[in-house]
């Protein structure tokens, strides 16, 4: 079947009442989570996992995908109305979006963000549909050395996305290290369980994710006071002149976002940043930027949504996530007994295409929800954080103990929650740690298999072209950001 026939099949699966409900629940929850402080899409997905045990994996992943791109839009509301980006990818939106809100044009900023997100999300999904299957076909030829380097690339790329590459790498290695707790995947002997039988199954990815993204986030932000949002959003549909300024920015942002989203060492944050810079560079009057230019909202918003779709390409086709949230989704896929990677398009083709089809539906739902309901969502910003975080902690503990009916897990979560708090406080990225734990067994298996194949020689990773290229990209992902930073600092000093 070609991609179009596959997509039609996907629409048939996604359009069942249950899956439509999951999609709606996902985008709505995502939007609310994006607006409320203290819980991001990664923790939300981890907390929702126990609720989806009985559901079909297709429905659950449709909901998680909806939550992912719904949260992107939710973050826009906080950027525009209180000048606090809900997600790092909305930082650029707040520059001109908040200015527009103070000028009484908050509704237009939210409206153009919704329209831009819809257009970008739709084109991004088309890109995902066209690019992921051929990429997966190439990756089907991968052996243990290529897989090993692919996992290495995923880890280094995610580490490189954050502020400090060194901290990201350390977090990734800590995750790999925690992944060795339990039974050796190759020989079957127990290790690193320190005489505690409940550690024989290893550290569960849900516990670590909830601890780092849920508890850590709450402890890091529990002294946040009430925000003062601009509640009068005004009209949401842009007029002719505003639309004239915005549509080209949306198209450019879509292209930039998708390409950057697909790249392993980039993400929605970089995509929105690049889009803003491009719009400012090519503008006839760059001085309008920072004073409420609609292109400063339209471009970055289109860009970060297209990047979300782009990040799904490496996740579905290669099993390598392009962002923290897709790293958690990857863990969810594994928990449902699926193996993310090239085989997904052959062994679980119905699920993949249903999720892709649901993304079209979800983007449409977001558009029709946001144009009339922007003012209503804005009111959510009035809720004090003091009312929000205690229930989040109660949900965290319930979700974790329900996973294995084990109170010891709650203590493990508390311990890693403290680690997550310190990591958040001092800008150590948490996503590489979760990814290290999730991909640790695959990395260890493939590395040991590769070394066995080569009689212990590491040259196997250099003598096989694809493995060597992946290794080179992994090295570049680690070395290029610090090199660019050094050049930037030297230029600033000169």
């Amino acid at each position, binding site marked *: 079947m070609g991609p179009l026939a596959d997509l039609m099949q996907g629409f048939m699966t996604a359009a069942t009442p249950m899956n439509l409900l999951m999609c709606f629940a996902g985008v709505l929850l995502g939007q609310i989570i994006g607006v409320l402080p203290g819980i991001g899409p990664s923790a939300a997905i981890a907390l929702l996992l126990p609720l989806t045990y009985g559901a079909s994996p297709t429905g659950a992943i449709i909901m998680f995908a909806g939550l992912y791109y719904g949260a992107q839009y939710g973050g826009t509301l906080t950027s525009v109305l209180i000048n606090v980006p809900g997600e790092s990818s909305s930082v650029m939106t707040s520059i001109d979006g908040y200015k527009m809100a103070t000028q009484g044009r908050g509704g237009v900023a939210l409206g153009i963000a919704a329209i831009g997100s819809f257009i970008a999300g739709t084109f991004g999904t088309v890109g995902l549909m066209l690019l992921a299957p051929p990429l997966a076909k190439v990756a089907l030829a991968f052996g243990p050395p290529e897989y090993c380097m692919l996992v290495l690339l995923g880890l280094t790329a995610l580490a490189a996305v954050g502020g400090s590459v060194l901290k990201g790498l*350390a977090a990734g290695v800590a995750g790999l290290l925690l992944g*060795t707790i339990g039974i050796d995947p190759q020989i079957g002997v127990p290790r690193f369980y320190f005489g505690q039988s409940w550690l024989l199954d290893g550290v569960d990815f849900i516990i670590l994710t909830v601890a780092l993204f849920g508890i850590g986030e709450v402890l*890091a932000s529990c002294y946040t006071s009430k925000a003062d949002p601009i509640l009068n959003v005004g009209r949401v549909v842009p007029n002719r002149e505003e639309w004239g300024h915005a549509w080209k920015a949306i198209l450019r942002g879509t292209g930039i976002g998708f390409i950057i989203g697909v790249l392993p060492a980039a993400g929605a944050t970089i995509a929105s940043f690049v889009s803003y810079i491009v719009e400012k560079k090519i503008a006839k009057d760059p001085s309008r930027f920072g004073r409420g230019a609609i292109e400063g909202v339209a471009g970055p918003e289109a860009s970060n949504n297209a990047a979300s779709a782009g990040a799904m390409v490496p996740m579905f086709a290669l099993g390598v996530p392009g962002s923290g949230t897709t790293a958690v989704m990857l863990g969810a896929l594994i928990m449902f007994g699926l193996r993310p990677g090239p085989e997904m398009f052959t062994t679980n083709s119905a699920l993949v295409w249903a999720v892709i089809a649901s993304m079209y539906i979800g983007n449409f739902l977001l558009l029709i929800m946001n144009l009339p309901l922007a003012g209503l969502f804005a009111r959510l910003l009035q809720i004090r954080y003091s009312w929000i975080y205690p*229930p989040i*902690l109660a949900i965290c503990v319930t979700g974790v*103990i329900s996973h294995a009916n084990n109170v010891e897990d709650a203590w493990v979560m508390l311990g890693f929650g403290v680690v997550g708090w310190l990591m958040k406080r001092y800008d150590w990225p948490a996503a590489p740690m979760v990814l290290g734990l999730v991909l640790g067994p695959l990395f260890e298996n493939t590395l040991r298999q590769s070394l066995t194949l080569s*009689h212990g020689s590491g040259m196997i990773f250099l003598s096989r072209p694809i493995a060597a290229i992946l290794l080179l990209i992994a090295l570049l992902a680690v070395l290029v950001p610090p090199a660019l930073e050094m050049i930037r600092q030297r230029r600033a000093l000169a």
Partner: protein
Amino acid sequence: MQGRIAIGELVLAAFFVALGLLWVWTAARMPLWQGFAPQSGFMPLWYGITLIGLTAAVVVNLFIGKEPTKEEPIGKPLLVLAAFAAGIAGLEPMGFGPAMFLMLLFMFVFIERLSIIPSLLVSVTTTAVLFLIFRTWLKVTLPIGPLGF
């Protein structure tokens, strides 16, 4: 509050170094290599060494960094953490319902200084909703105390 180096970050780094040392020490006592194949201790040993090396590099960077580190106050997060730990400790002796209810109420009334009536309402509602979803709907075995929930 501003300081040259954040103590909390050094504590975090010390935790990672300790974790690395524990793995190196344990892995060194496991079989590392047999014939052509790496054994159970091989990867954990390298993970431990790499974690120690990377964390040491982060610490060195902290000391040679030019910007002073900003420190947020830690009193409230520690209080929240203590209440959360007490809530978990109460799960088995008191049962899920009372432990979560009291934890929520303590956080709302004593930590956040919120009004008692809305705090009671939100605490009861949150606990009841969680109990209904997990215990009644999903049939999850939650810890039961003397009160039966």
